[in-house]
């Protein structure tokens, strides 16, 4: 019994050490999205340099929803990846122009190229709130039924694409096949 008692502090120390060690590698800035496995919020909204659209106009396949703004410097980091994805035609990319001005957004797309099927014009950030956005860039993965399946905050680099998005997309597509 005394032996066991002697080891209690040691066990306590090891448990705390493991907890703190793990804590070192947690990023408090990454918040889980509340909208995972929930449908896209209902919307009826204008697009950048385009007409009004609603949920019915979204792609009927797995697509990316990318939150961007002309003021957003990290968006330039992910822009080559988005451009490549849309050029290769593997997955449609829908934009959300978040808290921006339409004229600035149009200039930005002209200067950097437009990888988006269309960009939802969310000047006052109201659509962003429904989506749980807290700052550009954010990228959501939405399935063919319009259900949000995954969210990534910070630039969508090639590494993030390969390590996080490709497996998630493969899972969604295999699910869709097995349900047929």
């Amino acid at each position, binding site marked *: 019994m005394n032996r066991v008692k002697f080891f209690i502090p040691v066990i306590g120390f090891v448990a705390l050490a493991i907890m703190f060690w793990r804590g070192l590698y947690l990023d*408090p800035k990454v918040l889980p*999205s*509340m909208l995972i496995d929930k449908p896209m919020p209902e919307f009826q909204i204008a697009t950048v340099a385009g007409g009004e659209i609603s949920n019915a106009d979204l792609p009927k396949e797995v697509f990316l929803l990318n939150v961007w703004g002309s003021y957003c410097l990290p968006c330039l980091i992910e822009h080559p990846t988005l451009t490549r994805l849309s050029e290769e035609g593997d997955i449609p990319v829908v934009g959300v122009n978040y808290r921006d001005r339409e004229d600035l957004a149009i200039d930005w797309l002209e200067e950097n190229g437009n990888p988006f099927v269309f960009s939802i014009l969310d000047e*006052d*950030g109201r659509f962003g709130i429904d989506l749980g956005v*807290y700052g550009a860039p954010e990228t959501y993965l939405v399935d063919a039924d319009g259900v949000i399946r995954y969210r990534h905050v910070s630039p969508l680099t090639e590494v993030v694409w390969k390590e996080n998005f490709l497996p998630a997309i493969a899972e969604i597509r295999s699910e869709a096949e097995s349900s047929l």
Partner: protein
Amino acid sequence: MKLIRRLHKAKLSTCLLLLALTIFSAITVPEVVAQVDTFKFETDEQEARFRTLSNELRCPMCQNTSLTGSTGGVAQDLRREIHRMILEGMSNAEIEQFMFERYGDFIFYRPRLTTNTLLLWFGPLIFLLIGAFLGFGIWRRAKQVNIADVELDPEQQQRLKDLLGNKQ
């Protein structure tokens, strides 16, 4: 001897300084209000509710700032939404539910009591109980020590007196 006395004094003043610092740092400075929105309300009660809500809801973009204290874009938008919802007659619970559905538990400075937050709410109490239990155990065992067993015999008493006497 003088040196030792001086050191003693220095230690005392250091202790006092540390104590003072501890006390002052415990008195929190009221949050600097960064927002300059000019929202109009119909009643003072609505305005008070707005203040409470934006003080108790956390800016999702920042790590530790309330909606009141944040100049972040999303915080501005959320303050605007709170204002709109209050004017539309929504209750605090409804507004909090709106925020929870979009930003989760992170948005609350006063987290809701759910299975996920049980440890957060009652963890400190558990640690307090563990501490009290251990403290009680130590106190009880200290009481059981038989004084006669550890008391000095007359010979040891004499030696102790000699030793102390020599020092003085």
